[in-house]
């Protein structure tokens, strides 16, 4: 047999198996100083799981407070700090890093037929920088009592009676970690692809990571600059955003959203990559149109930079600017629509396997449809005048950004769990967890669309009694969501310790990452693979076996 051909199954010589990356070395040092992309991915997995739980606890406390129109369990100032904590934690500590740092790190070299990322030491450094950033952000927020919301709007953030600078410094540090990871991934995709792996043979997940890395390195510096300017304003009174000194508070919003709108795609593009990757495997057929998914990824990555002004339709922006940003918003939405059509089409004439991963992927598509269409409705400018800064917007961005990122993260975690840990999880409990999570999410945020229609402003500690029953419904949904996530957590932890040994390729998938052992040995491939087919081509074994003989 040609040793260089890419076999989808591990050769049956199981007894000679090399130790996996998990067992090859032991002890804390072997983890804390590792250069292995797979171990760094697990360090990230532990970190972002912690921040996800933390952000979730903040969310539950907020939902509890909102059960009644006035004081339920906390004062207004505590509430303001909690929604800041929830937003900052979920955006910068969970959603932005989650899928790229965990699954990008773990899978990129495997999918490229490489032994590691191009810059392994930078990879480890980015994790340390991330952890330092998290510590500075959280300690700064809790000790300083930051109450600005995650958007840090001036002049409130520069005149707030509470400390803002530590949080800004923390997010600034995390930004460096993001840039390092982005640079690393771009270099990796360009330089360490296996022989025969030309661009149009790249798995769709790799394209998603490539697109998101471009946004990360282009947009994150703008965030850094903006946060630094706010720090200078608070420290030295530079007056860049202060009208009394000739500055402009709206300038901050332009700078902030120039980063933060593309950041929405930093959060969802990796999730879109995950769904594009797992659907062909679970539908047992190639993607509906591979190139459409690839090109739309780049459409989102570039047009996404032009739509930031739709966050400021009522901020005093000129009508001409509003029209322009409205058009750009419709332009970027079309690329998401293309992806959705192609995902639905992926099931056509397939053999769809139903399990927790399929449930998460279909849930992702469903949320994208409704989140996307409510986004387009908000982009029509005229309707935004009513919905802007109400619960409608809160519901919309949870539907388009928070829910899909969470569901895609869980889809990826389940799909590649056997690859990462070599264990099998309970099919039944994982499906119960997925269904409960999806239903809880839907029940939490659907009432919030109606609250927005009624006119309830966001970030409100107290509200009028007529809004109460919808808040109660939303809080009930949040408890179901929390239950779903707990079921999922326990199912996976149980699988980790007591799960059966997983087969090498439990999903019968065609992706290159399944060509090495599960879990992989420290250097992934025993022999450097040569790619002779696309990532979704089937059947593989007979053809290649024929060629080999």
């Amino acid at each position, binding site marked *: 047999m040609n040793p260089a051909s890419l076999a989808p199954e591990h050769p049956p010589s199981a007894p000679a198996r090399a130790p996996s990356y998990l067992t090859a070395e032991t002890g804390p040092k072997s983890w804390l100083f590792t250069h292995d992309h797979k171990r760094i991915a697990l360090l990230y997995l532990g970190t972002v799981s912690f921040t996800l739980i933390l952000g979730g606890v903040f969310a539950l406390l907020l939902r509890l407070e909102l059960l009644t129109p006035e004081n339920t369990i906390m004062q*207004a100032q505590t509430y303001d700090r909690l929604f800041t904590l929830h937003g900052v934690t979920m955006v910068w500590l969970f959603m932005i890093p989650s899928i790229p740092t965990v699954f990008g790190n773990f899978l990129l070299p495997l999918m490229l037929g490489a032994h590691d990322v191009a810059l392994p030491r930078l990879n480890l450094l980015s994790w340390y920088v991330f952890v330092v950033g998290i510590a500075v952000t959280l300690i700064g927020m809790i000790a300083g009592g930051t109450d600005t919301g995650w958007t840090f709007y001036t002049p*409130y953030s520069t005149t707030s009676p509470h400390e803002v600078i530590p949080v800004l410094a923390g997010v600034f540090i995390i930004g460096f970690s993001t840039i390092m990871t982005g640079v690393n991934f771009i270099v990796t995709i360009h330089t360490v692809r296996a022989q025969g792996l030309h661009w149009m043979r790249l798995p769709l997940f790799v394209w998603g990571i490539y697109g998101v890395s471009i946004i990360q390195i282009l947009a994150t510096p703008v965030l850094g600059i903006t946060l630094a300017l706010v720090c200078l304003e608070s420290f030295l009174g530079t007056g860049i955003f202060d009208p009394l000194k000739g500055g402009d508070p*709206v300038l901050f919003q332009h700078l902030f959203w120039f980063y933060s709108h593309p950041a929405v795609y930093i959060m969802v593009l990796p999730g879109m990559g995950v769904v594009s990757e797992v659907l062909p495997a679970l539908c047992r057929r190639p993607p*509906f149109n591979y190139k459409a998914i690839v090109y739309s990824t780049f459409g989102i990555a570039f047009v996404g930079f032009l739509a930031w002004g739709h966050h400021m339709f009522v901020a*005093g922006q000129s009508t001409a600017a509003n029209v322009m940003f409205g058009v750009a918003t419709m332009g970027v939405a079309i690329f998401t629509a293309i992806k959705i059509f192609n995902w639905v089409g992926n099931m056509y004439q397939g053999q769809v396997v139903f399990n927790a991963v399929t449930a998460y992927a279909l849930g992702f598509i469903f949320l994208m449809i409704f989140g996307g269409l409510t986004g387009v409705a908000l982009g029509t400018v*005229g309707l935004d005048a009513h919905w802007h800064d109400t619960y409608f917007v809160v519901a919309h961005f949870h539907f388009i950004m928070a829910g899909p990122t969470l569901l895609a993260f869980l889809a990826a975690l389940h799909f590649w769990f056997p690859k990462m840990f070599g264990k099998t999880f309970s099919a039944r409990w994982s499906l119960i967890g997925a269904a409960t999570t999806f239903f809880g999410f839907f029940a939490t945020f659907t009432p919030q669309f109606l609250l927005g229609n009624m*006119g309830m402003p966001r970030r409100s500690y107290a509200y009028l009694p007529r809004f109460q029953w919808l808040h109660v419904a939303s809080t009930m949904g949040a408890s179901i969501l929390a239950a779903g996530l707990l079921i999922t957590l326990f199912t996976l932890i149980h699988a980790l310790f007591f799960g059966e040994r997983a087969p090498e390729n439990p999903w019968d998938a065609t992706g290159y990452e399944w060509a090495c052992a599960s879990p992989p040995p420290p250097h992934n491939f025993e022999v450097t693979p040569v790619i002779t087919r696309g990532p979704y081509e089937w059947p593989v074994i007979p053809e290649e076996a024929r060629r080999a003989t």
Partner: protein
Amino acid sequence: MAAGSTSQFFNTYMRKLLFLPRQGATYAAQVDHLHYFVLLTTLAVAAALTVTGLAFFVRYKQRVPGKRGTRAGQGLLLEVLFIGTPLSFFLLWLGMGIDVYLHIVSPPADAMQVYVTAKQWMWKFDYPDGPVAQGVLHVPVGRPVKLLMTSRDVIHSFYVPAFRAKRDVLPGRYTEYWFQATAPGHYDIFCAEYCGAGHSYMRGQVIALPPAQFHAWYAAHSRGRTAQDDANDPAVGNSLVAQGERVAANQGCLKCHSVDGSAHIGPTWLGLFGRREVMTDGTALIADAPYLTESMMAPAARIVRGYQPVMPSFQGRLAAPEVAALLEYIKSLHDLPLQVHPPEGPTYEPR
């Protein structure tokens, strides 16, 4: 006539289905009609996609393990359709939305002007050569009203859900907002831009009156009350307490300090003068005139335990006689019995 009542019925039915408040401004119905159109087309598209997805899921669900699907689709024409269909819908919605938006942001030339000042956490309405009002904006029905808005501190947003429009209120700049009330009634004003601890209490009301009643109100309140007015007013006279009460209302003190003993963002003023207070650093003091004056000018210097340092400084905003009047007013709140005010706020329900 029949068509008119049908569309009326449709409008009311859809509005209630979507939990929208009543249509208080002339353009509100226009916004709602766009809302219905976008929602119905959106739901049709979303339902079609969901049903197609479910149908594919059921039809192509794997029944024989190990079986693989066939490769189909991929048509370029199909992808063009995938782009063209939604894009034409998106642009249609956008075109209609911009049309509505232009209407919302273009006040008629003959609009009555009111100056709006927002600050943490109150709304102030100034009529040219007329009344000054706190929190309540009186307007005549059937006449366009243009608001010229600015902020004294951070960014706020003037939002009346029943009118279906909002606009940010910025420091150092004037923004416009206009509406024409369609029917007499009370409409809630909210602040839609987060502005600190009192954000959710920064509420107000638009009271739309029939023109005759509005003119009567305007005439009765058309004197902006100043310290000089107070001095000339026999009801107020030289009473520092009454002047202090006016200053407290005008400066927004009562947005955070209650005068009836109830808990709020700041300590209550009832019985405050001469009270022993424990500070955040554990020291105790008697709330006397020097301490209260310091609290107005440098509020963060010494904070009563249990409260947050959120109060802005009034240095330069209060004249010395005003400080004296405020102190007299606080002193006068010593032995008042607990007063229960009816809750301020919305009085209407969506019908």
